[in-house]
């Protein structure tokens, strides 16, 4: 293998991607090293008393949420990409939006609706009915809330895939005597397994790493164990050990998925694009689709936004909007920069994987997920330790340049770096599925027509990839908007974002004030979505 590399020479692309991968891996290395520290007493305690329960809870949540988001997300994606609907475009944009509501805020919202003296009680009281007790702060409730607000993750990834799926595959199955649903389940679904699994993996990781919602709901999970070891027993090594084992499990699952997928890989489908001609749905299908969409949007969008608006309206006005301009600027500038970095890195890695597929490039593609596979606070520490050691080794240079000691660590750069490696997985997921559908043929045709790599990328690859890139950008941007743990711990002095404002209020049980900023996050996401769909209109595929 190495001989071949030597023979080919190291391409610049390979070198750049390798550097990116090293940057992603480095903080994780600092985490994994701690695996080899001696086993601590608190680890033994956790293992003896609570670990089994916590893992059980985690698994129940992950399983429930995966199934529900998988079904809902795929259903919406398939329906919207293959059938005609009234207001189809509007519905499509609306279905992304629940993504902008962080699950832990949604937890407060649904808590606020169903708790005693909550919104439901008040409404029932108004109409003179007895209060109904729904225990939303339970495992079932957590699955419900997670599912509602994570469905867009699956929807977005699978939709990009379905849109590019050649029509003839579906048609040939129909001609072979399979009806619509058999075609979907026996042909389309197995073909889209990669995209579907990609989306669901994101959902799983999101659920596994959540601490805010499960804490409020009182459901101890694996991440509770991590934080309990760290915060409760001040045993950082133990916490890191738990996080590292979580990371290992995630990596094993991903590698297994990759391995099984490898065999049945979608051969380069002959995508004679059908120009997105959409079919008419049957009556029954129509009813099912409209009812489901309506119910989903009510629960995941209308209801929470109404609740948030109402809460905001009774927020105490005192200091809520202090320094709003700089907060908004911080949020958006960091969001834009991180989104660009995520997209650029995703394209580079995906492109390497497409052009020079090798075992190494496949491993690279999986490593990208590292940053997303452990709770963010742990990653934050890895990044912190990495940066401080870089800063220390550069201290001589800083002396010459008259910079302060921890120049990088105390700048926005560390935050941007950490957010980029954290959300790389999310962006890369969409971009990779875009690349794998696109294949190499247009690239080769362009080269044979005498164009170099850069021209080819700019005028052929990029336009064809645009939908995938846009969905990657949506993911990354909205996620940065609502990101908390990394921003909290790595931010420079006096640096606030919309999400940190939500956190400071919500953590202090000031949900009314927190609502104001939650709504602003949703508002900014809507603006971003509109901007991106505007850009998307420029593409005609």
């Amino acid at each position, binding site marked *: 293998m190495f001989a071949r590399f030597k023979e080919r020479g190291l391409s610049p692309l390979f070198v750049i991607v390798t550097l990116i991968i090293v940057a992603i891996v480095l903080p994780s290395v600092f985490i994994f090293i701690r695996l080899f520290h001696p086993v601590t007493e608190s680890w033994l305690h956790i293992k003896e008393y609570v670990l089994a329960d916590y893992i059980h809870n985690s698994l129940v949540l992950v399983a429930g949420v995966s199934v529900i988001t998988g079904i809902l997300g795929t259903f919406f994606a398939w329906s919207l990409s293959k059938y005609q609907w009234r207001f189809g475009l509007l519905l499509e944009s609306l279905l992304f939006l629940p993504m902008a509501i962080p699950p832990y805020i949604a937890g407060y919202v649904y808590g606020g609706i169903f708790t005693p003296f909550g919104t439901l009680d008040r409404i029932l009281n108004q109409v003179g009915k007895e209060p109904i007790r729904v225990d939303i702060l339970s495992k079932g409730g957590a699955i419900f809330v997670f599912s509602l607000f994570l469905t867009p993750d699956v929807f977005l990834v699978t939709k990009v895939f379905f849109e590019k799926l050649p029509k003839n595959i579906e048609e040939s199955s129909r001609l072979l005597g399979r009806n619509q649903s058999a075609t979907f389940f026996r042909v389309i679904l197995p073909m889209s397994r990669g995209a579907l699994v990609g989306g669901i993996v994101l959902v799983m990781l999101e659920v596994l790493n959540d601490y805010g919602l499960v804490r409020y709901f009182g459901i101890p999970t694996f991440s509770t164990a991590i934080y309990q070891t760290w915060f409760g027993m001040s045993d950082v090594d133990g916490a890191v050990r738990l996080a590292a084992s979580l990371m290992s499990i995630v990596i094993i699952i991903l590698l297994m998925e990759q391995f099984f997928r490898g065999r049945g890989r979608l051969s380069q489908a002959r995508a004679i694009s059908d*120009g997105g001609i959409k079919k008419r749905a049957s009556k029954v299908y129509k009813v099912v689709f409209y009812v489901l969409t309506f119910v989903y949007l009510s629960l995941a969008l209308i209801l929470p936004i109404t609740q948030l608006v109402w809460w905001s309206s009774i927020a105490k006005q005192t200091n809520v909007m202090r320094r709003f301009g700089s907060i908004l600027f911080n949020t958006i500038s960091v969001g834009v920069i991180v989104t660009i970095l995520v997209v650029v890195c995703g394209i580079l890695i995906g492109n390497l994987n497409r052009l020079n597929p090798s075992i190494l490039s496949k491993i690279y593609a999986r490593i990208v997920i590292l940053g997303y596979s452990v709770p963010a606070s742990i990653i934050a520490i890895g990044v912190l330790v990495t940066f401080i050691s870089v800063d220390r080794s550069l201290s001589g240079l800083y002396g010459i340049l008259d910079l302060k000691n921890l120049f990088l660590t105390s700048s926005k750069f560390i935050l941007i770096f950490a957010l980029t490696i954290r959300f790389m997985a999310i962006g890369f997921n969409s971009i990779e599925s875009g690349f794998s559908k696109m294949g190499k043929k247009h690239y080769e045709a362009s080269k044979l027509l005498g164009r170099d790599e850069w021209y080819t990328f700019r005028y*052929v690859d990029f336009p064809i990839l645009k939908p995938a890139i846009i969905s990657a950008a949506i993911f990354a941007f909205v996620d940065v908007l609502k990101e908390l743990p990394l921003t909290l711990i790595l931010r420079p002095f006096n640096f606030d974002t919309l999400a940190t404002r939500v956190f400071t209020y919500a953590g202090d049980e000031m949900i009314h004030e927190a609502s104001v900023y939650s709504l602003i996050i949703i508002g900014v996401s809507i603006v971003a979505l509109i901007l991106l769909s505007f850009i998307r209109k420029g593409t005609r595929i």
Partner: protein
Amino acid sequence: MIKLINISFQYDNASTETLKNINLELETGEVLAVVGPSGGGKSTLLRVIAGLEKPKVGEIFLGEKCLCKKGTFVNPEKRGIGMLFQDYALFPHMTVAKNIEYGLIGMNTTERKKRVKEVLGLVNLVEYEKRYPHELSGGQQQRIALARAIAATPKILLLDEPFSNLDTHLLQSVREELFGIIREIGITTIMVTHNPEDATTQADRVIEIVEGIASEKNWTKNNKGFI
């Protein structure tokens, strides 16, 4: 015109060579058909000539120019070779005109427009300039792909299974038409096909590749014999 000397090729993940010691020489304007069972290495041969794959050993010359030998490798975009892909690989986001203009490097706008008109005339699709590929039929797409491949006047044209996507009743007329154009411009052509009839009716010479080994066949109607 084109000369392959001792070309061997092996894929990264394969245990044996896909092409074994291939030697081949073509005169200007000659049409060569490459036949053989699928998986035998026909398409790989085209990809090696195009520069999309790098041979393990061997040399390739196009005219006087060396495309490939030990220590030298000319990238595909520098070779001046036209290729008609099996599934055409038209760029879905560009109009027919843009697709054809794509390979016309170093021409000004008027020249480019003129050349587009010319090649569209050649394939009889002048009025389709503004269409997108998905708005065309399979046969039309193929002719556009051909127009694109020959627009920049390559020295040699490679055809990868050019008729596999066409309905049988169309096959003959399309084939006639395609080779009418090829003969008209007199371009040196290598065509990979699984259909012996393509070879016998249109080619000057035929080689068969089986398990990576090439052998010349004496099949053609207008057989000019061995060189």
